[in-house]
Protein backbone atom coordinates (compact mmCIF):
# COMPACT_ATOMS: atom_id res chain seq x y z
CA UNK A 1 0.00 0.00 0.00
CA UNK A 2 1.20 3.46 -0.89
CA UNK A 3 1.18 6.21 1.71
CA UNK A 4 1.27 9.98 1.80
CA UNK A 5 4.23 11.01 3.92
CA UNK A 6 3.92 14.78 3.76
CA UNK A 7 2.02 17.66 2.24
CA UNK A 8 3.41 20.97 1.10
CA UNK A 9 1.30 24.08 0.69
CA UNK A 10 3.07 26.69 -1.40
CA UNK A 11 2.47 29.70 -3.58
CA UNK A 12 3.45 29.21 -7.22
CA UNK A 13 4.10 32.81 -8.32
CA UNK A 14 6.06 32.84 -11.61
CA UNK A 15 8.56 35.39 -10.34
CA UNK A 16 9.56 33.00 -7.54
CA UNK A 17 10.70 30.66 -10.30
CA UNK A 18 12.32 33.51 -12.19
CA UNK A 19 14.24 34.55 -9.06
CA UNK A 20 15.73 31.06 -8.88
CA UNK A 21 16.34 30.83 -12.63
CA UNK A 22 18.17 34.16 -12.56
CA UNK A 23 20.11 33.62 -9.33
CA UNK A 24 18.39 36.47 -7.51
CA UNK A 25 17.43 34.55 -4.40
CA UNK A 26 20.02 36.38 -2.28
CA UNK A 27 18.83 39.83 -3.36
CA UNK A 28 17.25 41.98 -0.68
CA UNK A 29 13.88 41.63 -2.36
CA UNK A 30 13.90 37.83 -2.44
CA UNK A 31 16.09 36.65 0.45
CA UNK A 32 13.37 36.87 3.14
CA UNK A 33 11.19 34.49 1.13
CA UNK A 34 13.94 32.02 0.29
CA UNK A 35 15.35 32.14 3.82
CA UNK A 36 11.87 31.18 4.95
CA UNK A 37 11.92 28.17 2.62
CA UNK A 38 15.16 26.76 4.01
CA UNK A 39 13.86 24.76 7.02
CA UNK A 40 11.27 23.08 4.80
CA UNK A 41 13.84 22.29 2.16
CA UNK A 42 16.18 20.80 4.74
CA UNK A 43 13.43 18.62 6.19
CA UNK A 44 12.11 17.47 2.80
CA UNK A 45 15.65 16.55 1.72
CA UNK A 46 15.58 13.95 4.51
CA UNK A 47 12.08 12.72 3.78
CA UNK A 48 12.12 11.88 0.10
CA UNK A 49 8.99 10.63 -1.63
CA UNK A 50 8.92 8.21 -4.57
CA UNK A 51 6.38 10.32 -6.41
CA UNK A 52 4.75 13.71 -5.90
CA UNK A 53 1.24 14.83 -6.75
CA UNK A 54 1.08 18.52 -7.57
CA UNK A 55 -2.33 20.14 -7.31
CA UNK A 56 -2.20 23.29 -9.39
CA UNK A 57 -3.90 25.29 -12.09
CA UNK A 58 -2.83 26.02 -15.60
CA UNK A 59 -2.55 29.72 -16.50
CA UNK A 60 -3.73 30.05 -20.10
CA UNK A 61 -0.97 27.78 -21.37
CA UNK A 62 -1.84 24.10 -21.74
CA UNK A 63 -5.56 24.27 -21.11
CA UNK A 64 -7.45 25.90 -23.89
CA UNK A 65 -10.32 28.38 -23.61
CA UNK A 66 -12.34 25.97 -25.71
CA UNK A 67 -12.49 23.13 -23.23
CA UNK A 68 -11.98 23.88 -19.55
CA UNK A 69 -12.02 20.94 -17.15
CA UNK A 70 -12.91 21.33 -13.50
CA UNK A 71 -10.48 18.59 -12.42
CA UNK A 72 -7.91 16.87 -14.63
CA UNK A 73 -5.15 14.37 -13.92
CA UNK A 74 -2.06 13.97 -16.08
CA UNK A 75 -1.47 10.34 -17.03
CA UNK A 76 1.41 10.85 -19.47
CA UNK A 77 4.92 9.55 -18.94
CA UNK A 78 6.42 12.93 -19.78
CA UNK A 79 5.15 16.48 -19.41
CA UNK A 80 6.95 19.11 -21.50
CA UNK A 81 7.62 22.44 -19.82
CA UNK A 82 5.36 25.07 -21.40
CA UNK A 83 6.45 28.21 -23.19
CA UNK A 84 4.24 30.70 -21.39
CA UNK A 85 5.14 33.61 -23.62
CA UNK A 86 8.81 34.10 -22.91
CA UNK A 87 10.28 30.64 -23.61
CA UNK A 88 10.12 27.58 -21.34
CA UNK A 89 11.70 27.76 -17.88
CA UNK A 90 15.24 26.31 -17.88
CA UNK A 91 14.30 23.33 -15.75
CA UNK A 92 14.44 19.56 -16.36
CA UNK A 93 11.60 17.79 -18.15
CA UNK A 94 8.90 16.53 -15.84
CA UNK A 95 8.43 12.77 -15.84
CA UNK A 96 5.08 11.27 -14.92
CA UNK A 97 3.94 8.12 -13.17
CA UNK A 98 1.36 6.68 -15.57
CA UNK A 99 0.57 3.64 -13.49
CA UNK A 100 -0.32 5.51 -10.31
CA UNK A 101 -2.01 8.26 -12.32
CA UNK A 102 -4.20 5.68 -14.07
CA UNK A 103 -5.03 4.11 -10.73
CA UNK A 104 -6.00 7.54 -9.40
CA UNK A 105 -8.27 8.29 -12.35
CA UNK A 106 -9.97 4.90 -12.16
CA UNK A 107 -10.44 5.13 -8.39
CA UNK A 108 -11.75 8.69 -8.53
CA UNK A 109 -14.21 8.01 -11.33
CA UNK A 110 -15.43 4.97 -9.37
CA UNK A 111 -15.97 7.36 -6.47
CA UNK A 112 -18.03 9.67 -8.70
CA UNK A 113 -15.47 12.37 -9.36
CA UNK A 114 -15.81 13.40 -12.99
CA UNK A 115 -12.14 13.59 -13.81
CA UNK A 116 -10.82 14.78 -17.15
CA UNK A 117 -7.93 12.62 -18.31
CA UNK A 118 -4.93 14.61 -19.56
CA UNK A 119 -3.21 12.01 -21.69
CA UNK A 120 -0.85 14.71 -22.95
CA UNK A 121 -0.04 17.87 -21.05
CA UNK A 122 2.42 20.72 -20.97
CA UNK A 123 3.08 22.04 -17.49
CA UNK A 124 3.45 25.71 -16.61
CA UNK A 125 4.77 27.66 -13.63
CA UNK A 126 1.85 26.48 -11.53
CA UNK A 127 3.59 23.09 -11.41
CA UNK A 128 7.25 23.87 -12.02
CA UNK A 129 7.59 26.65 -9.43
CA UNK A 130 6.44 24.35 -6.60
CA UNK A 131 8.91 21.74 -7.88
CA UNK A 132 11.64 24.37 -7.62
CA UNK A 133 10.48 25.33 -4.14
CA UNK A 134 10.96 21.65 -3.23
CA UNK A 135 14.17 21.11 -5.20
CA UNK A 136 15.99 24.35 -6.02
CA UNK A 137 18.93 22.64 -7.71
CA UNK A 138 17.54 19.68 -9.65
CA UNK A 139 20.53 19.31 -11.95
CA UNK A 140 19.51 17.25 -14.98
CA UNK A 141 16.45 15.67 -13.45
CA UNK A 142 13.79 16.24 -10.83
CA UNK A 143 14.18 13.89 -7.89
CA UNK A 144 11.06 11.82 -8.64
CA UNK A 145 8.11 11.40 -10.99
CA UNK A 146 5.24 13.87 -10.79
CA UNK A 147 1.49 13.53 -11.23
CA UNK A 148 -0.23 16.78 -12.20
CA UNK A 149 -3.67 17.31 -10.66
CA UNK A 150 -5.30 20.30 -12.32
CA UNK A 151 -8.05 22.42 -10.86
CA UNK A 152 -9.95 25.14 -12.72
CA UNK A 153 -9.57 28.40 -10.85
CA UNK A 154 -9.52 30.74 -13.88
CA UNK A 155 -13.13 30.58 -14.97
CA UNK A 156 -16.18 30.86 -12.74
CA UNK A 157 -17.68 28.48 -11.65
CA UNK A 158 -14.63 27.03 -9.97
CA UNK A 159 -15.26 23.87 -7.96
CA UNK A 160 -16.47 24.63 -4.46
CA UNK A 161 -13.99 24.52 -1.59
CA UNK A 162 -16.00 21.61 -0.21
CA UNK A 163 -15.66 19.66 -3.44
CA UNK A 164 -11.91 20.29 -3.50
CA UNK A 165 -11.57 18.89 0.01
CA UNK A 166 -13.70 15.86 -0.95
CA UNK A 167 -11.49 15.29 -4.00
CA UNK A 168 -8.48 15.29 -1.70
CA UNK A 169 -10.11 12.75 0.58
CA UNK A 170 -10.81 10.48 -2.38
CA UNK A 171 -7.20 10.90 -3.56
CA UNK A 172 -6.07 9.85 -0.08
CA UNK A 173 -8.17 6.68 -0.29
CA UNK A 174 -6.92 5.95 -3.81
CA UNK A 175 -3.32 6.21 -2.69
CA UNK A 176 -3.99 3.82 0.18
CA UNK A 177 -5.49 1.33 -2.24
CA UNK A 178 -2.48 1.41 -4.58
CA UNK A 179 -0.73 -1.93 -4.18
CA UNK A 180 2.91 -0.80 -4.41
CA UNK A 181 4.69 0.23 -1.21
CA UNK A 182 5.65 3.71 -2.32
CA UNK A 183 5.87 7.01 -0.53
CA UNK A 184 3.90 9.90 -1.92
CA UNK A 185 4.06 13.63 -1.21
CA UNK A 186 1.28 15.98 -2.22
CA UNK A 187 1.57 19.68 -3.01
CA UNK A 188 -1.31 22.12 -2.72
CA UNK A 189 -0.28 25.21 -4.65
CA UNK A 190 -1.33 28.78 -5.40
CA UNK A 191 -2.33 31.70 -3.21
CA UNK A 192 -2.16 33.30 -0.87
CA UNK A 193 -4.17 36.53 -1.24
CA UNK A 194 -3.60 38.42 -4.48
CA UNK A 195 -5.47 40.15 -7.23
CA UNK A 196 -3.88 41.06 -10.54
CA UNK A 197 -6.53 43.21 -12.21
CA UNK A 198 -9.32 45.67 -11.51
CA UNK A 199 -9.38 48.54 -9.09
CA UNK A 200 -8.51 46.19 -6.26
CA UNK A 201 -5.26 45.10 -7.98
CA UNK A 202 -2.52 44.75 -5.39
CA UNK A 203 -4.93 43.44 -2.75
CA UNK A 204 -3.30 41.62 0.15
CA UNK A 205 -5.31 40.35 3.12
CA UNK A 206 -2.92 39.16 5.79
CA UNK A 207 -5.72 38.57 8.30
CA UNK A 208 -7.47 36.15 5.97
CA UNK A 209 -4.19 34.52 4.98
CA UNK A 210 -3.11 33.94 8.61
CA UNK A 211 -6.49 32.45 9.41
CA UNK A 212 -6.25 30.15 6.39
CA UNK A 213 -2.66 29.19 7.17
CA UNK A 214 -3.72 28.12 10.65
CA UNK A 215 -6.96 26.35 9.80
CA UNK A 216 -5.58 24.42 6.85
CA UNK A 217 -4.01 22.27 9.56
CA UNK A 218 -6.43 22.50 12.45
CA UNK A 219 -9.87 23.04 10.93
CA UNK A 220 -10.00 22.48 7.18
CA UNK A 221 -13.73 21.80 7.45
CA UNK A 222 -14.23 25.46 8.31
CA UNK A 223 -12.40 26.46 5.14
CA UNK A 224 -14.68 24.22 3.05
CA UNK A 225 -17.64 26.33 4.19
CA UNK A 226 -16.28 29.49 2.62
CA UNK A 227 -18.08 30.35 -0.61
CA UNK A 228 -16.29 31.15 -3.83
CA UNK A 229 -17.59 34.69 -3.57
CA UNK A 230 -16.03 35.06 -0.14
CA UNK A 231 -12.69 33.65 -1.34
CA UNK A 232 -12.69 36.20 -4.14
CA UNK A 233 -13.82 39.03 -1.87
CA UNK A 234 -11.33 38.25 0.91
CA UNK A 235 -8.35 36.78 -0.94
CA UNK A 236 -8.78 38.44 -4.33
CA UNK A 237 -9.78 37.18 -7.75
CA UNK A 238 -6.59 35.12 -7.95
CA UNK A 239 -6.45 34.30 -4.24
CA UNK A 240 -9.25 31.78 -4.85
CA UNK A 241 -6.37 29.51 -5.85
CA UNK A 242 -6.28 28.67 -2.14
CA UNK A 243 -9.04 26.11 -2.72
CA UNK A 244 -6.27 23.93 -4.15
CA UNK A 245 -4.63 23.69 -0.73
CA UNK A 246 -7.80 21.93 0.39
CA UNK A 247 -7.22 19.12 -2.10
CA UNK A 248 -3.81 18.54 -0.51
CA UNK A 249 -5.29 18.74 2.99
CA UNK A 250 -8.11 16.33 2.18
CA UNK A 251 -5.63 13.72 1.03
CA UNK A 252 -3.88 13.74 4.40
CA UNK A 253 -5.03 12.30 7.70
CA UNK A 254 -7.16 14.26 10.12
CA UNK A 255 -4.22 14.86 12.39
CA UNK A 256 -1.11 16.29 10.78
CA UNK A 257 2.02 17.92 12.19
CA UNK A 258 3.25 21.32 11.07
CA UNK A 259 6.97 21.08 10.38
CA UNK A 260 7.51 24.69 9.37
CA UNK A 261 5.84 27.63 7.71
CA UNK A 262 6.69 31.01 6.29
CA UNK A 263 4.63 33.97 5.14
CA UNK A 264 6.00 36.87 3.15
CA UNK A 265 4.64 39.96 1.39
CA UNK A 266 5.19 40.62 -1.44
CA UNK A 267 6.35 38.12 -4.03
CA UNK A 268 5.51 40.09 -7.14
CA UNK A 269 1.85 41.05 -6.48
CA UNK A 270 1.19 38.17 -4.11
CA UNK A 271 1.26 37.23 -0.47
CA UNK A 272 3.47 34.15 -0.64
CA UNK A 273 3.49 31.35 1.90
CA UNK A 274 4.81 27.89 2.46
CA UNK A 275 3.55 25.41 5.02
CA UNK A 276 4.91 21.89 5.37
CA UNK A 277 2.97 19.15 7.12
CA UNK A 278 3.98 15.64 8.06
CA UNK A 279 1.21 13.10 7.79
CA UNK A 280 0.20 11.11 10.86
CA UNK A 281 0.93 7.41 10.81
CA UNK A 282 -2.53 5.96 10.55
CA UNK A 283 -5.36 7.11 8.36
CA UNK A 284 -8.47 8.26 10.12
Amino acid sequence: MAEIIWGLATSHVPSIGAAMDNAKTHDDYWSPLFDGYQPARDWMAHHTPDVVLIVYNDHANAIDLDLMPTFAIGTASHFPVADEGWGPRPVPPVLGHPDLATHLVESLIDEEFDITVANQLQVDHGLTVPLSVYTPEPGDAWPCPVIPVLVNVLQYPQPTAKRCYALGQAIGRAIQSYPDNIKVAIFGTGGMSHQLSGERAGLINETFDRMFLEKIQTDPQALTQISREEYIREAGSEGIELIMWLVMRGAMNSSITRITETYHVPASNTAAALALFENSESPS
Partner: protein
Amino acid sequence: MSSKPVVEGTYVFGIEDNRRGYALNKLCSTFTSAENRQLFQDDEAGYCDKFDLTPEQRTAILERDWVKMLDLGGSIFYIFKLAQLDKKSVQYLGGIFTGMSTEEFIAELKAGGRHFG
Protein backbone atom coordinates in the same frame (compact mmCIF):
# COMPACT_ATOMS: atom_id res chain seq x y z
CA MET B 1 -28.98 34.59 -15.14
CA SER B 2 -25.52 33.51 -14.16
CA SER B 3 -24.81 33.16 -10.46
CA LYS B 4 -21.36 34.65 -10.99
CA PRO B 5 -20.43 36.77 -7.97
CA VAL B 6 -20.22 40.51 -8.33
CA VAL B 7 -17.30 41.89 -6.34
CA GLU B 8 -16.58 45.58 -6.57
CA GLY B 9 -13.27 46.52 -8.17
CA THR B 10 -12.78 42.95 -9.35
CA TYR B 11 -13.10 41.10 -12.63
CA VAL B 12 -14.56 37.65 -12.15
CA PHE B 13 -13.99 35.82 -15.43
CA GLY B 14 -16.94 33.57 -16.20
CA ILE B 15 -18.43 31.56 -19.04
CA GLU B 16 -20.12 34.57 -20.59
CA ASP B 17 -16.85 36.52 -20.47
CA ASN B 18 -15.10 33.64 -22.19
CA ARG B 19 -17.68 33.81 -24.98
CA ARG B 20 -17.52 37.59 -25.27
CA GLY B 21 -13.75 37.84 -25.03
CA TYR B 22 -12.99 34.70 -27.00
CA ALA B 23 -11.16 36.17 -30.00
CA LEU B 24 -9.17 38.59 -27.85
CA ASN B 25 -8.04 35.88 -25.46
CA LYS B 26 -7.44 33.44 -28.30
CA LEU B 27 -5.14 35.92 -30.01
CA CYS B 28 -3.12 36.33 -26.82
CA SER B 29 -3.02 32.56 -26.31
CA THR B 30 -1.01 32.19 -29.50
CA PHE B 31 1.90 34.03 -27.87
CA THR B 32 2.98 30.73 -26.35
CA SER B 33 4.98 30.22 -29.55
CA ALA B 34 8.05 32.27 -30.42
CA GLU B 35 7.08 32.21 -34.08
CA ASN B 36 3.71 33.78 -33.36
CA ARG B 37 5.27 36.38 -31.11
CA GLN B 38 7.52 37.42 -33.97
CA LEU B 39 4.66 37.47 -36.46
CA PHE B 40 2.66 39.73 -34.18
CA GLN B 41 5.55 42.08 -33.60
CA ASP B 42 6.24 42.28 -37.33
CA ASP B 43 2.66 43.24 -38.20
CA GLU B 44 0.29 43.82 -35.33
CA ALA B 45 -2.70 44.91 -37.40
CA GLY B 46 -2.29 42.04 -39.87
CA TYR B 47 -2.06 39.59 -36.98
CA CYS B 48 -5.25 40.97 -35.50
CA ASP B 49 -7.02 40.37 -38.81
CA LYS B 50 -6.56 36.64 -38.38
CA PHE B 51 -8.91 36.66 -35.38
CA ASP B 52 -12.58 37.44 -35.24
CA LEU B 53 -12.10 40.49 -33.01
CA THR B 54 -14.75 43.13 -32.53
CA PRO B 55 -13.59 46.58 -33.66
CA GLU B 56 -13.39 47.62 -29.98
CA GLN B 57 -11.22 44.63 -29.13
CA ARG B 58 -8.95 45.30 -32.06
CA THR B 59 -8.47 48.91 -31.07
CA ALA B 60 -7.91 47.98 -27.42
CA ILE B 61 -5.15 45.58 -28.43
CA LEU B 62 -3.43 47.91 -30.86
CA GLU B 63 -3.65 50.85 -28.43
CA ARG B 64 -2.73 48.73 -25.42
CA ASP B 65 -5.84 49.83 -23.59
CA TRP B 66 -5.47 47.27 -20.80
CA VAL B 67 -8.61 48.25 -18.91
CA LYS B 68 -10.66 48.11 -22.09
CA MET B 69 -9.34 44.66 -22.89
CA LEU B 70 -10.62 43.42 -19.54
CA ASP B 71 -13.93 45.20 -20.02
CA LEU B 72 -14.32 43.47 -23.38
CA GLY B 73 -13.99 39.96 -21.96
CA GLY B 74 -10.25 39.66 -21.70
CA SER B 75 -8.82 37.40 -19.01
CA ILE B 76 -5.82 38.81 -17.18
CA PHE B 77 -3.89 35.59 -17.80
CA TYR B 78 -4.24 35.98 -21.56
CA ILE B 79 -3.77 39.72 -21.63
CA PHE B 80 -0.64 39.39 -19.55
CA LYS B 81 1.00 37.50 -22.41
CA LEU B 82 0.64 40.62 -24.51
CA ALA B 83 2.09 42.74 -21.72
CA GLN B 84 5.05 40.36 -21.52
CA LEU B 85 5.68 40.86 -25.22
CA ASP B 86 5.88 44.57 -24.46
CA LYS B 87 8.19 43.79 -21.52
CA LYS B 88 5.64 45.20 -19.11
CA SER B 89 5.35 43.71 -15.63
CA VAL B 90 2.28 42.82 -13.57
CA GLN B 91 3.27 45.81 -11.44
CA TYR B 92 3.07 48.05 -14.49
CA LEU B 93 -0.41 46.70 -15.20
CA GLY B 94 -1.33 47.04 -11.52
CA GLY B 95 -0.40 50.71 -11.73
CA ILE B 96 -2.59 51.16 -14.80
CA PHE B 97 -5.54 49.41 -13.17
CA THR B 98 -5.31 51.49 -10.01
CA GLY B 99 -4.32 54.85 -11.43
CA MET B 100 -0.82 54.78 -9.95
CA SER B 101 2.65 54.84 -11.34
CA THR B 102 4.45 51.51 -11.40
CA GLU B 103 6.74 52.78 -8.64
CA GLU B 104 3.81 53.78 -6.44
CA PHE B 105 2.15 50.42 -7.01
CA ILE B 106 5.35 48.56 -6.09
CA ALA B 107 5.76 50.73 -3.00
CA GLU B 108 2.23 49.84 -1.85
CA LEU B 109 2.99 46.14 -2.28
CA LYS B 110 6.23 46.46 -0.33
CA ALA B 111 4.32 48.23 2.42
CA GLY B 112 2.09 45.16 2.80
CA GLY B 113 -0.23 45.42 -0.13
CA ARG B 114 -3.52 47.19 -0.61
CA HIS B 115 -6.35 46.61 1.85
CA PHE B 116 -10.10 46.65 1.29
CA GLY B 117 -13.26 46.21 3.29
